[in-house]
């Protein structure tokens, strides 16, 4: 595993908890985002994720740097899966540890919000009768710079 990684393989969760843990840390928050079958009444058959892999891994590492600046003492690992994913598969995992739990909770939520803004990964929803790439207009130069 890498600390900030895009992978085609199913995500094995426990190694990311272990990676961020050391004797300074008192809490680990591990978030897993899963493929949802129903979105606004529409049934998804499966998802297809695509990434600009080298840039996506750089942007995940940037999010890790932003978290370190905002919450000193935290440790972060993030992995995002790409390729075809079935209902309930793990698409993304964010693991953050901190000496005290509040920082890990806050940093973890910050990470998923930033992933949705600046990491070049795209989701295609495949339905029974069609398919569509998803995405809002984020990922601009402005978004890429950390906001205080």
């Amino acid at each position, binding site marked *: 595993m890498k600390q900030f990684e895009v992978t085609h393989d199913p995500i094995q969760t426990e190694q990311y908890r272990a990676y961020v843990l050391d004797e300074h840390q008192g809490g680990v928050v591990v978030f897993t*985002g899963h493929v949802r079958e129903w979105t606004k009444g529409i049934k998804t058959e499966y998802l297809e*994720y*695509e*990434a*600009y892999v*080298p*840039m*996506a891994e*750089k942007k995940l590492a940037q999010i890790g740097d932003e978290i370190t600046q905002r919450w000193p003492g935290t440790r972060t690992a993030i992995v*995002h899966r790409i390729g075809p994913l079935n209902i309930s598969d793990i*698409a*993304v995992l964010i693991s953050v540890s901190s000496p005290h739990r509040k920082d890990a909770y806050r940093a973890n939520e910050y990470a*998923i919000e930033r*992933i*949705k*803004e*600046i*990491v*070049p*990964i*795209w*989701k*295609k929803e495949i339905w029974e009768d069609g398919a569509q*790439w*998803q*995405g*809002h*207009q*984020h*990922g*601009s*130069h402005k*978004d*890429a710079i950390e906001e205080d």
Partner: protein
Amino acid sequence: MKVLYFAELKEILNVQSEEMNINSEITVETFKQTLIEQYPQIAEKQFQIAVNEEFVPSDAIIQQNDIVALIPPVSGG
């Protein structure tokens, strides 16, 4: 320069990457205009430009050996 396409843009144009020759250094804005002239089918699509794996503003300069990526609205997570 090498140009990379992803997601919806890749499907519309049916191309993943291609080499493009530029005569001199051009701005990102000029590159986008040139690209849309060549591919009018993506004129209405939203995308950002990344140069060498970093988002850049529209007045940034693209050089001959750069890797330029069209980044449609992202939807990871």
